Structures are given as structure tokens and as C-alpha cells.
């Protein structure tokens, strides 16, 4: 019985493969071309990454012909945590775990609710104090932070903080109050018309001058504030698209029922609008994750910058390929996870919609 079923499954897979890969003449051509390309690319890559590679030893043991995974072994700590003191490494590791937990919880619809909204600021504060070295003998200034925790922290916190601001901006842009609407339009267009590098320079150079004398804000915090304000403009436009997709009849019906503006938004419009914009938001989030590597221009050691710097050590000079591969692998895991999640969620929502009477 089970053999028969597995044979059935096998047959089904084969059929799918055959029709999918060789079903039409075009498909056959594409399949053959792809196979040819893979045959060209894979063997040298395999030779570089496995056969000629060096897995242990020091830089002298590595030949330039193959990959030097010994470099990755020696430098993984630096690429992930950069300048953070090695004996306090559990702190950034815990930060990564904490951020992964809250991001996962935020991704699952069953956790959506007030407790999650309260958990976010707590998690952010916990991460900040962990990184700062709270309850340890020596505080860790933010110029010693780096690597993956910084990338994830800036990404998650700035995106999370940008969303409520963006919500208000999007509502303001559709508001009937002219002043509010003009402000929102000006703000969004100004931010979207400025490159992110420019925003980071403002955080680095202009913001300290604009602060009253004696008051100084940490560079990391300055950068995060500006990045949040910058991303808010982009998120606002995505949310506005969602708001526009809700037919105006719904607002009118809500008004007829005696609901005020805020109640209408909260109970009728936003629950539907936000659901629509989730794919757009995930798309933005992926772009933002990759954009965090721009933090390097103001001297913050994000994951990519740490990977680059790891290959400048005279003891391990020039293993840029290996260093960048590690960084690429991390980015790939996070980004592909996010896009798989987005597809899963879309499927879930559209299934719900079809079942509705």
C-alpha cells in the first residue's frame, strides 16, 4: 500500500518535472540552456569551494586557488560581532536571539494584539541596555558595537518605529485638513527625494550642530532616529496605497452608523488596509535590510562593513571572497525567510477571503 503510494507520488513528481521542464518547446530550450550554464559554472565553483579549499590552518596554509574556509573559522567572530569585547560576546548573541524571537512573534498572526505592541518597546530597550553593557563592570560605547546585532537592531527597530509614524503620515496625506495634508506631502516628498546616504550624513554631521550646547546624542542613536524618519516616508506611501484600496462607501457607511473619524479608521479601514499592504511592507523590509549596509559610510560597523574589514588584517590579507560570501549567506537567509513568509501570509489571507460568503 505505502509502496504503491510512494510510487504514485514519484510518478506525479516525474510528470510535473516532465511537463514543467520539457512540456513545450520553449520550456525544453530553457531547461537545456540552464543545464548547460550550470555545467559551465558548477564544476569550477565546486573545485574552488570544496576540492581546492583549505579548511584549517592559518593564512599561509591557504592557496589562492581554492577557498580559504580557515579564514572564515578565524574571522567568524569578528564578522558577526566586530569590535564587541570577546568576553562579553553573549550580550550581542542574546540580542540576536531576542530580535529573532520578537520578529518571529510579530510575523505570526496569532500573536497580533496588544501584548505584542507592549513587548516591542520592552525588547528594544532590553537590546539597547544589553549592548550598552548594563550590569557589567564597564559600559560598552556604541563605537564598539558591530556586525550582525547592529544590522538586525537598526533594521528591526527603525522599521518598527517608522510604521506608526508612517501610519499617521498616510492618514494625514488623505486628511481633509489642508495644512496637515500639505505637511505630510512635503515631508514624504522631501524624504523620498533625498538619498539615504545624505540622511546618514545629516545624522552624523548636521544633527550634532543643531543640538543645544552640552547635549550630545550617541552617534548610533542619531543615525537610528534619522533612518526611522527616512523610512517612515516610504512606509507611509505603501500604507496610503492600502488606504486607497478601501472603497469610500465603507467610510460613508461607518459615518452613517455614527462612528467618529478615529473609530472608523481603527475598526473599519485600517484592519483591511494593513492586510492588503503586507506584501508591500515585506518587500520594503527586505530592501531596508540591504540598505542598512549604507551605515558603513558614517563608520558604523554593520555586517557587511565588518566582513570587509576582516579581510584587511595583515595576518589574513585579501580573503574578500570568503568574507563577502559569509555576509551574503546571512543576508540571504534573512531575506529569503522574509519573502517566503510574505507568500505564506498572502496565501493565508486570500484563502480566508475566498471562504468568506
Amino acid at each position: 500500500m505505502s509502496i504503491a503510494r510512494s510510487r504514485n507520488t514519484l510518478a506525479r513528481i516525474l510528470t510535473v518535472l516532465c511537463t514543467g521542464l520539457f512540456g513545450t518547446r520553449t520550456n525544453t530550450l530553457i531547461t537545456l540552456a540552464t543545464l548547460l550554464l550550470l555545467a559551465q559554472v558548477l564544476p569550477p565553483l565546486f573545485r574552488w569551494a570544496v576540492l581546492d579549499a583549505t579548511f584549517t590552518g592559518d593564512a599561509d596554509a591557504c592557496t589562492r586557488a581554492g577557498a580559504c574556509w580557515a579564514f572564515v573559522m578565524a574571522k567568524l567572530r569578528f564578522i558577526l560581532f566586530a569590535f564587541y569585547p570577546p568576553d562579553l560576546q553573549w550580550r550581542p548573541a542574546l540580542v540576536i536571539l531576542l530580535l529573532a524571537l520578537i520578529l518571529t512573534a510579530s510575523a505570526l498572526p496569532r500573536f497580533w494584539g496588544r501584548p505584542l505592541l507592549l513587548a516591542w518597546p520592552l525588547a528594544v530597550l532590553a537590546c539597547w541596555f544589553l549592548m550598552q553593557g548594563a550590569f557589567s563592570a564597564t559600559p560598552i560605547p556604541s563605537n564598539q558595537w558591530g556586525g550582525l546585532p547592529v544590522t538586525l537592531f537598526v533594521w528591526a527597530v527603525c522599521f518598527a518605529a517608522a510604521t506608526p509614524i508612517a501610519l499617521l503620515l498616510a492618514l494625514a496625506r488623505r486628511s481633509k485638513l489642508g495644512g496637515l495634508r500639505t505637511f505630510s506631502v512635503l515631508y514624504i516628498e522631501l524624504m523620498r527625494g533625498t538619498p539615504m546616504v545624505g540622511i546618514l550624513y545629516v545624522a552624523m554631521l548636521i544633527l550634532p550642530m543643531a543640538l543645544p550646547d552640552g547635549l550630545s546624542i550617541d552617534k548610533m542613536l542619531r543615525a537610528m532616529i534619522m533612518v526611522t524618519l527616512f523610512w517612515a516616508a516610504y512606509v507611509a506611501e505603501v500604507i496610503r496605497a492600502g488606504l486607497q484600496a478601501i472603497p469610500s462607501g465603507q467610510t460613508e457607511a461607518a459615518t452613517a452608523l455614527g462612528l467618529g473619524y478615529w473609530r472608523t479608521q481603527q475598526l473599519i479601514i485600517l484592519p483591511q488596509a494593513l492586510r492588503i499592504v503586507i506584501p508591500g511592507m515585506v518587500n520594503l523590509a527586505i530592501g531596508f535590510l540591504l540598505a542598512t549596509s549604507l551605515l558603513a559610510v558614517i563608520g558604523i560597523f554593520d555586517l557587511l562593513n565588518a566582513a570587509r574589514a576582516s579581510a584587511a588584517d595583515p595576518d589574513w590579507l585579501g580573503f574578500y571572497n570568503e568574507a563577502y560570501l559569509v555576509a551574503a549567506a546571512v543576508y540571504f537567509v534573512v531575506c529569503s525567510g522574509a519573502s517566503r513568509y510574505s507568500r505564506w501570509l498572502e496565501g493565508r489571507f486570500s484563502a480566508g477571503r475566498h471562504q468568506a460568503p
Partner: protein
Amino acid sequence: MLVQKTFRRAIKSAAAATFLATVMLSGLAHAGPTLDKINQRGAIKVGVGTTPGFFAPDSNGKWQGFFIDFGRALSITVFGTPDKVEFTSSSPQQRLPALQSGEFDILLSGVTVTTTRAFKLGFHFGPTIFYDGQGILVRKDLGVTKATDLDGATIAAQSGTTGELNVTDFFRKTGKAFTPVTIEDTGQFIDALESGRVDAITQDSSDLVGKRTQLKNPDEYVLLPERLSKEPLAPAIAGGDDRWLELVNWTVNATIQAEEWGITSANVDEFLESDDPAIQRFLGVDPSFGNELGLDPKWAYNIIKTVGSYGEIFDRHLKPLGWERGYNSLWTDGGLLYSPPFR
């Protein structure tokens, strides 16, 4: 129409206000001398770069390198210990504005001393600690030992840089022929050289030394002795703090003077017995000299004991990468390093 006019006027006054505010605030930002801030903070903020041998983090995330050691020496001069210094990496585009805005107390990131930077940007420079310049890296099998011997060679330069102009000027002067190849991405220089597409590559010699170590067989290539441009790299500070500038000057001078006297971290204690009054002053055996300067009389001793002389710093970080002393030798050895007298 009226709305438009009011709007325009509002924008104009807003712009004027912003301008005024910026001017006033930037005035405020530069008010306090750098040294006060350093003492208040208890640490020196140093802007660095990432170039192998000059400044790079090791596997433990600790900064190491030629310029880094001068930062540590500076920390000894000011605080008496080498670790009260915070190194922060900064990109070439942002390091000068960051120094201006007070983000850094000093740049040890290999800034070239130029007239514009001194006059227009208002920076002060300490003594040149590294004489860099555009060099030419060639394959040994060309059988060339001087750049003037190069005739009909294919040379790669980075497009759109002064490097391209300098090499053209150089060959116009020597009257020899060469074929220029411009390359956009510096990463491709190595490929071009290894594949034999070009006979030589030209860039700042500090970059070339790093590139040489990345070649499959570094020993088959040689950096020619000529420099096609002058790139004196010196510590840069914001103007307006004379004492801070002097501390920077004499910290660098101390490492050079120590090498001239043959003092190293290994033998500095023997020199404490020296009869030479100049060395006694220098090492603080006679404390009156240091006291007059308002420094710990042992400051130079501590620098040499902890960080070493100029020669030691050079040998520690740059020699392993294949650097020759060249222009960065003492004046007594035909180089350009010369410390004013300590008296």
C-alpha cells in the same frame, strides 16, 4: 497668486533663518578647545581608515596598525596609558567633515597635507608620519628596476583619478612610450596584472603594497622606487587648539628622535643611565624638562617603552607587508624623517 507670494516669502525667511542658525551653531560647536573635551571625556577620539598594515582590526576586534600605534602614543602623552583612545573607522568622503564637526579629535587616517585643507578648510597638520606617493608595481620578468627604464609598457591606472594624469605626465617627461589602460574597479587590478593583460599597475604605493600581497605569487612583482606624486600623510586636527597641536607634534617627534638615538622599547632602560644631558631630558631622568612642559616627565620614556620608536612601529606593521623604508628613513639615512631637537 497671493498664496503663492506668501508661500515664497515664507520659504525665503525660513531659508534665511536656517542659514543664520547654522552659522551660529557651528560657531558654538567650535568654541571649546579640543584638549578640554578630551580631558573631560577621558579618551581621545581618533578617526582611522581600513588599509592593511596602516589600520585594521585583528581577529579579536582590536585595532592594529602603523597609524594606530601613533594613536596609542598620543594617549600615553595625554593620559599616561596607551588605551584611553577610541578608534572609529571613517570613509575618505566623510572624515574631513567629521573632524570639522568635532566628531573626532584627530584624524590618523592617512590624510594628505595640502594647501586647500590648511587654508580653506582650516585644518592643522602634525608632522608627516608617512611619505606616500603614487608608485608603479611591475612584473619582475620585465627586468626593470627604475620607472625611467619602462618603455612601451602597458600600465593600468584607475579611471578618473589623479593617478591617470600623473602617469601620463611622468611618461611625457621621460619621453618614453607607454600604453594606458584605465580600470574602473580597483579589485580588477590584480586580475589584469596576473592575466598579463597589463605589465604594470599604478596607484598610491600604500594601496599597491596591499595589492601585492594578494597576488598569487607576490615575489614575481616589484614596487619601483620612484614616486610619481607627493602624498605626505600626517595627523590632522581642527584649528583652534595650539596645545593639542603641540602634543601631536612632539609625540610624533619623540618616536623619530628615539630612533635617531637608537633607543628602542628593548633597550630604553639602559639609556636611563646615559650621560648625554639631551637623552636625560628626553627620558625624564631630569624631570625639570617635562615639568616645564606641563607633561609627565616620563611621557617620552613611556611612549618608547610601550609603543616603540618610529623604526619599531614601521617594522612591526609595514615591513611584513613588504614595505621598504625609502623616503620614510631618518634624515641620517637619506630619508625625510627629521625631528627638531628636544630642548
